[in-house]
């Protein structure tokens, strides 16, 4: 999950302005300011260096590589828009995009509703830190471990989950081996892992809503459902919007769970975009084409984020 960060450029400038005011009684203060500016620059440098080296440069290089044929070991060859033309005409790319969108819809839909329910329940019913801890537990596990554990649990013939399904008298369900079930299953595995974390973020947002609003509503005779609709939802909106933006970005980048459970199968039914990009790059050594698809994903994510931001008015609060 990458959220763009920018470093405020004002600090060094302030020092410079002070210096232009000339010598005088403020000289000492000016020195102090200049010193702070330099120190600030030093403190900023590691983050800035990290940003340039690990984010800005790879992004720019990725964009450049998307216009080349590149296999990592021999020099990249400029091919203009070839990779993009190929992408537009590649049915597997569009199929992957479709699969990813379905995944995001199921994953984010179920996760957001469940997380909101858990957060509201925590806010209205209990303040127990232990409970909050328990809710977060699956998040402590790595995606790969969670994926492998669920793969074993849901195995058609040998999985504990399917033993229970069969024990209850139902037919065994090929959760991860059937093209209809595979994407919803992967989406729900990731809901299981992330819902606690999302709930906790929303819970933090709920804590910021002043309690006297609820008390006033109660005095006016409002019930829990009405308070949720009229107080909780409107006041939680900015937090919910930010959480949605973050989780949607993360969801579009699903990779590890797919890699360890279905490897894109059966018959590309779970070939999400990131997995297709990975296979193209590290399996087929087509780094140019993989870069072009990554750029497309970047564009899609940016558009989705801007759209979400606009639609949910995430920057503004209804409070106060």
């Amino acid at each position, binding site marked *: 999950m990458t959220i763009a960060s920018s470093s405020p450029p004002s600090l060094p400038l302030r020092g410079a302005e002070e210096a232009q005011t000339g010598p005088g009684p403020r000289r000492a203060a000016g020195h102090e300011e200049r010193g702070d500016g330099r120190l600030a620059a*030093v403190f900023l440098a590691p983050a800035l260096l990290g940003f340039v080296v690990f984010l800005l440069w790879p992004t720019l290089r990725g964009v450049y590589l998307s216009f080349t044929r590149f296999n990592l*070991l021999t020099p990249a060859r400029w091919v203009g828009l070839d990779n993009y033309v190929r992408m537009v005409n590649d049915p597997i790319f569009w199929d992957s995009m479709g699969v990813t969108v379905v995944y995001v819809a199921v994953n984010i839909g179920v996760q957001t509703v469940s997380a909101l329910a858990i957060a509201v329940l925590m806010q209205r019913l209990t303040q127990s830190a232990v409970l909050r801890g328990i809710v977060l537990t699956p998040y402590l596990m790595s995606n790969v471990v969670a994926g492998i554990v669920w793969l074993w649990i849901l195995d058609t013939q040998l999985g504990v989950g399917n033993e229970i399904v069969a024990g209850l008298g139902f037919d065994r369900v*090929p959760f*991860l*081996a059937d093209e209809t079930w595979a994407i919803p299953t992967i989406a729900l595995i990731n809901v299981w892992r992330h819902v606690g974390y999302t709930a906790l973020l929303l819970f933090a947002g709920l804590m910021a809503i002043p309690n006297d609003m609820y008390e006033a509503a109660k005095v006016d005779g409002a019930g829990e459902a009405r308070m949720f609709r009229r107080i909780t939802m409107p006041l939680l909106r900015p937090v919910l919007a930010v959480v949605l933006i973050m989780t949607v970005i993360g969801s579009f980048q699903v990779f590890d769970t797919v890699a360890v459970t279905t490897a894109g199968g059966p018959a590309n039914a779970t070939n999400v975009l990131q997995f297709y990009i990975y296979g193209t790059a590290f399996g087929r050594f087509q780094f140019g084409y993989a870069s072009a698809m990554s750029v497309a994903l970047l564009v899609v994510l940016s558009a989705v984020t801007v759209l979400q931001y606009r639609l949910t008015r995430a920057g503004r609060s209804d409070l106060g």
Partner: protein
Amino acid sequence: MRVRLRKVLALTGVLALSLATGCAQGGAAGSGADSVTYWLWDANQLPAYRACAKGFEKQNPGLDVKITQLGWADYWTKLTASFIAGTEPDVFTDHIQKFGQFADLKVLEPLDDLGLDDSAYQAGLAANWRGQDGRRYGAPKDWDTVALFYNRRTAEAAGLSADRLGSLDWNPEDGGSFEKAVARLTIDKNGRRGDEKGFDKDNVKVYGLATGGAGDADGQTTWSPFAASAGWRYTDKARWGSAYQYGSKTFQSVLDWYFGLAKKGYLAPFTDYTDGANPANAQVASGRAAASLDGAWMISTYYGTKGLDVGTAPTPVGPTGKRATMMNGLADSITKNARNKEGAKKWVRYLASNECQKTVGGYGIVFPATPDGTAAAVAAYRKKGVDVSAFTEPVTDRKRSATFSFPITDYAADVFALMRPAMQDVYANDAPVSGLSKTNDQINLVLGQ
């Protein structure tokens, strides 16, 4: 403030310096004039190659072999990364499926000056490691074939003797005695066998044949023994062909029959198989399947499974009148940028020698490439009470058996990427096999680039 700033700068400097030197040390990876770095993926083979390394070091005082073992999946990722980072091993265990790509990327050192003799190894093994330029890029180290593993108790209960299972035949029309045997081994939840009246194919308790997935582009342990015994081959030429033949009528009729076994309830359906969790040996071990087609590299796994009394039989005789199995061989390759190329060449020459291969054979975990090494392995297996003739017969008895190699062409990774979903579509979604003709056209288009 100034003092603090200086301190910060000094600390940053120290940190940067230590990181830089640390990286430099890491980059060298312990390789040098007095050592050779060697990578392999099979943990079972590690003790055998350690023993080889000891023998080598005794003959080459001052040269030290540093072996690194990595799991199959990590192995290739790390190897690729090492080529980019310049931290590749001097020598590594190479797989024929990856050979074309590595040759294309020009990361392998030609081994022609090692003076290896093709005839010193089991037939065909050495020739596979020649690139399109005619040069040798791998020194043969071992080989494997495919056979039928079966649960002996289940087979006995079905009235199928070892002799019977060892003399099965097959054809794409009615499946021959092989299909009859597989049907006999299949039991539904009411206890009816696959060849009995009233057999319920939708509620099978024990499948006659375990599934190993859709087989991707090679079908090594799934459909390839059948397709090859019907006379089909992957490509137009034995090596470095320019066209694949997945569009062939023969091939498609074989697939129709093979995946048709699943529709009849004899072969476990694709949905029983989740990549990585439930391979064929697990299906046999759990009693969910009576038999499976699997490779020689799995012998120790099957025979080491507690509570499983396992037997093996060669693949069935096909329409050509011969049995067929893939014979795949690994090799040792030297990287083009090996730090200690001279030491690496010495080590590879030793790995390819009868002496080392006999040592490896003695561990009874793999069949070494030289006939003496193979004999040592057969003897070691016999000592463990394992009869491996189902695997060795195709190699020793060329009259009754045909062996074929993994497809060796350019763009192997692209072929895999196109064939994997296409084959899964046939097996899992019942897509018509004729659809593979289109996939074949796409593959040949890529090959013709």
